[in-house]
């Protein structure tokens, strides 16, 4: 019997993206640049995160016209963002045939208590996390892919490093624990017990985990891979740089060959100016997108 939307089909889609770069785009032209550079998927948005910061106000799902335009422009998968807990935005994107939905802290949350029950949908979801508890709660709700949050739209890698290190250190801890220690760890992390057992059994998270939120250079992307990310999301880092074509291509190459430092040196030459970054300490508490999610 033919079954759609199964856990295997949804998680499998993310497995196929491993080792790749997913790029934020706001129109068909940018989507084509991303595809030509070798992106494994694009994220269709109305504004990239750094512009969302500047614009202020409420950030919502993109105009469906933009998502449709991007879907029509490329043959690689197209993702789009829905607000945390916004059931209808997610259903709209699913109905449009988007390949993956990001229930994203980059947009203003629609629900400050509950996330979407993602297991209810045929379309797969990716969600942000800063630690294993958050990662496990999102998987428990049905996320088929994770990305560490970092701090979106800053061009500053420091939070992305913090989050990928934290998640992976906590995974290693769980893997090294004895079976009888897992329930207390589940309680401390706020993580479903059965998921910790699965992580211990597999020796890793049961879904793909990309890094996001601050990647601005090929070396940043390679650093994320070095720290154990399965792939990289680049938001503002490409189309807010001086030369998007070159940055996009170089970030893709550095992600594949993240241990080939001579090659990364070569492709990093004369790339032009990367996006201007923000010191995290200068962000107010309410400007920190990573705090969104529960």
């Amino acid at each position, binding site marked *: *019997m*033919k*079954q*759609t*939307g*199964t856990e*295997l*089909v949804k998680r*499998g*889609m993310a*497995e*196929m*993206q*491993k*080792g*790749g770069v997913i790029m934020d785009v706001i129109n068909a032209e940018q989507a084509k640049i991303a*595809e*030509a*550079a*070798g*992106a*494994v*998927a694009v994220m269709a948005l109305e504004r990239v995160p750094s512009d969302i910061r500047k614009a202020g106000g409420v950030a919502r799902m993109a105009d469906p016209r933009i998502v449709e335009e991007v879907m029509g422009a490329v*043959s*690689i*998968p197209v993702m789009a963002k829905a607000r945390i807990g916004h059931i209808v935005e997610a259903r709209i994107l*699913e109905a449009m*045939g*988007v*390949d*993956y939905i990001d229930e994203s802290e980059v947009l203003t949350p629609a629900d400050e208590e509950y996330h979407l029950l993602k297991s209810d949908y*045929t*379309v*797969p979801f990716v969600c942000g996390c800063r630690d294993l508890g958050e990662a496990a709660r999102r998987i428990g709700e049905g996320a088929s892919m994770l990305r560490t949050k970092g701090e979106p739209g800053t061009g500053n890698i420091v939070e992305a490093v913090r989050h990928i290190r934290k998640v992976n250190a906590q995974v290693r801890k769980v893997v090294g624990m004895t079976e009888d220690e897992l329930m207390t760890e589940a309680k401390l992390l706020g993580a479903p017990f059965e998921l910790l057992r699965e992580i211990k059994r597999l020796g890793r998270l049961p879904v793909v985990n990309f890094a996001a939120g601050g990647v601005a250079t090929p070396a940043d992307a390679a650093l994320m891979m070095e720290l154990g990310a399965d792939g990289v999301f680049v938001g503002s880092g490409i189309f807010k740089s001086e030369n998007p074509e070159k940055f996009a291509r170089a970030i*893709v*190459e550095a992600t*594949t*060959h993240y241990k080939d430092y001579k090659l990364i040196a070569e492709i990093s030459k004369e790339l032009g100016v990367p996006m201007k970054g923000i010191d995290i300490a200068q962000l107010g508490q309410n400007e920190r997108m990573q705090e969104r999610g529960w």
Partner: protein
Amino acid sequence: MKRIGVLALQGAVREHVQMLKDLGCEAIQVKSKQDLVKLDALVLPGGESTTMRKLLDRFDLLKPIRELAQQGLPMFGTCAGLILLANHLVDDEPHLAVMDVVVARNSYGRQVDSFEIKLDIPKIGVDIPAVFIRAPHIEAVGKNVEILAHHEGKIILAQDGHLLGCSFHPELTPDTRILEYFVSSMV
């Protein structure tokens, strides 16, 4: 021990490497030309074919892999790997162009249409799980190509001499029978 390469530019590399090891093979991750030496076979995994093609070009792998295929090195392509092997693509220029098949990409629709089924493949076994993700299918085959499996009237697994290609992802399930067929009867 058979030395089998897995093209490791992007995609389901880990799964193929693990499955090859489980079958008692040595698995070599192929990222550049020097990794192609002394292989007994090469697996082209699932992933994004567009991305893989760009990286094959940029790291000078397209021609060496094509030549190895022409010299008779056994190759197994799953999903994106099948697209790379095909002589003709319905809506695009071919990539390695070594297997005598015509392949249509994304022929089942978008991700919401992706699915899993159980397949009976006369030459290999019954009830084999098959996961189709934004999958291609084989629209036509040359006269020397053996069709190994169909689903809903579409060709989804075929063998052209030393080349094996399938639409779906055997690497995503614990069932090793298709890879075993490749390793034991083609390599």
